[in-house]
């Protein structure tokens, strides 16, 4: 596995950060891949993040899965608890009280979806895969950060691009 280095540049606004991302995209620096670039910002800014390329979100699939699982499990659960699907002791047909069961099923349909949605989001954040502690508290204040993971020989070129686009601060780590 190749050794990786990290470089973080801070910018005053999204305008500069967007131009820098465009420059990075157009550059062909050996040991650098666009998919290893991370934008860090105090607010959500999808227009700027578009420069990073397609990074799809799959949360809704998990929401649907949670809704289906939650509702079907609870419906089966409460139906079994009431023995709804068994024939009556004297041989009559089983009674499945659909309306009251549906109320509870509806609640668990939503609750299941909520649990799966939130769990999926926490996984998608990739907190468990944080590779560097390179972070600046100014990002939560008012600065825009661009973090790049690259091979050590690419760092000098990346620093040049950041400087050219008026980066306020640049920091590095291994």
């Amino acid at each position, binding site marked *: 596995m190749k050794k990786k280095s990290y470089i973080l540049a801070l910018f005053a606004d999204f305008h500069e950060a967007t131009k820098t991302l465009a420059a990075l995209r157009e550059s062909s620096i050996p040991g650098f891949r666009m998919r290893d670039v991370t934008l860090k910002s105090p607010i959500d800014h999808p227009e700027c993040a578009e420069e990073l390329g397609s990074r799809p979100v799959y949360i809704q699939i998990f929401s649907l899965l949670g809704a289906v699982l939650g509702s079907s499990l609870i419906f089966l659960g409460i139906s079994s608890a009431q023995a709804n699907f068994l024939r009556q002791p004297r041989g009559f047909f089983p009674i499945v009280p659909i309306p009251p069961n549906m109320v509870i099923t509806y609640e668990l349909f*939503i609750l299941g979806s909520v649990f799966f949605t939130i769990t999926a989001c926490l996984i998608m954040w990739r907190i468990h895969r944080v590779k560097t502690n390179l972070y600046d508290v100014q990002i939560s204040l008012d600065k825009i950060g661009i973090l790049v993971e690259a091979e050590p020989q690419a760092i000098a070129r990346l620093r040049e691009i950041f400087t050219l686009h008026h980066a306020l601060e640049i920091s590095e780590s291994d």
Partner: protein
Amino acid sequence: MIEAHEEKDVAIEQRFEPKAKDIDDEISWAQINVDVLRSLERPRPLYWIIFFASLALFMWGGYCEVYQYNTGLGVADLDNPQVWGLYIATFIFWIGMSHSGTLLSAILLIMHADWRKPIYRFAEAMTTFSLMTAGLFVLVHLGRVWQFYYVVAYPSERWAWPNFSSPLVWDATAIGSYLTTSVIFLFFGMIPDLAICRDNATGFRRTFYRVLSMGWRGTDRQWSNFRVTYLTLACLLIPLAVSVHSIVATDFAVSQQPGWHTTSFPPYFVAGALYSGCAAIITLFIVLRYTFRFEHYMTIPILEKLCKLTFAISMVWTYLNLIEYAAVWYGTDPVAKQTLIFRATGTYAGWWWAMNILGSVVPFTLTWKRLRTNIPIMLVVSLLLNLGMWIERFMIVTPTFAHGYYPWTWTQGWWPNWVQVGIILGSFGWFNMLFMLFCKIFPSVSMYEVKEMVYHRREARKSLSSMRPSTDP
């Protein structure tokens, strides 16, 4: 010809005439952090006055509950036919209060109404604490508190299940789901702000916020997933909120009691819930604005929008109220009609008329700009509206029990005693205490959303000024 051109120019100029700003978009992001984080450090003295007054009320309510627990439900003067009294009326009131957070946060989020951004956080907190308070009344009204788990569906060793066809079991499920989802929604929406708190805190507070911020670093991947998740949660929360109060309404509507057995009850309850919640948001808006010096964020234009929203909902509630009266009046159930007449002319007539005046007439003060921009008047009006909505719940529960199908139920002189009133006051203390604690520990204004709001408005203003027609010849 020249005149026509001049008129056109004037019309274009008027189109670009700036309206009253919801928020000052010149405020810097750093200043937003400073202002909101300051609220976690040094509130005005009124904060402590409210907090300790609430604590005292809560302790008094706690004493009354302990007395009732040790002695029995009889000390609350609850007996047949008045078996619910103020407890269930106040339970509905607190459930209703919880709806406003969902309205302000989720519905307005989906509608892209960005004026909600400075105020939705405390509305969400209000939802959570209202639900927690409502849950207490489920226990309090039982008397035998230790048997509360009878409504919870769990596999006991005797395989004795609750009655799944009972609205009380639906209630337990719905409120449990709503509380869980509301807490998740509140917490999840706070994560970027908790990261800001983490970056600015020291000592044990830093550790506290670091754990809660769950590794948030504001990366593009985090933001994109956060945005989709938050929107999905909002979409899930809206039907859940509607279902909760509809199910609370079925507690009454599926019974055979006169005055309750009506199909308009679920929408009537939902409208009442949104109404009382909005009125409560106005009250808390004014209190927080002063206590935490949030004048730059909780602005008069936002208060105006809240007032207009409250007025609109009050008219929906008024309409549904009249529909309910009409349905009973022109219906075929003579006992229900007699109960309605009893409400308007009997022992509780004063309260019934107060409910109608406070709920349907007082909201018209919200239509006058001069009144709705006057903060002390709005504080009084919002409290009156909530008083009206609390009386509404009392009017739903008590007169029906006092004028049922059988003459033996006609206990027309029943009034709640000091134990019930003490516990009700204690619930207000409990709610206020939790709410004030929340505002001291967590940012009650969403910093990142206000930053977004300021940023987008500033950008919009820039692009608008570039579109402005040139005055040069």
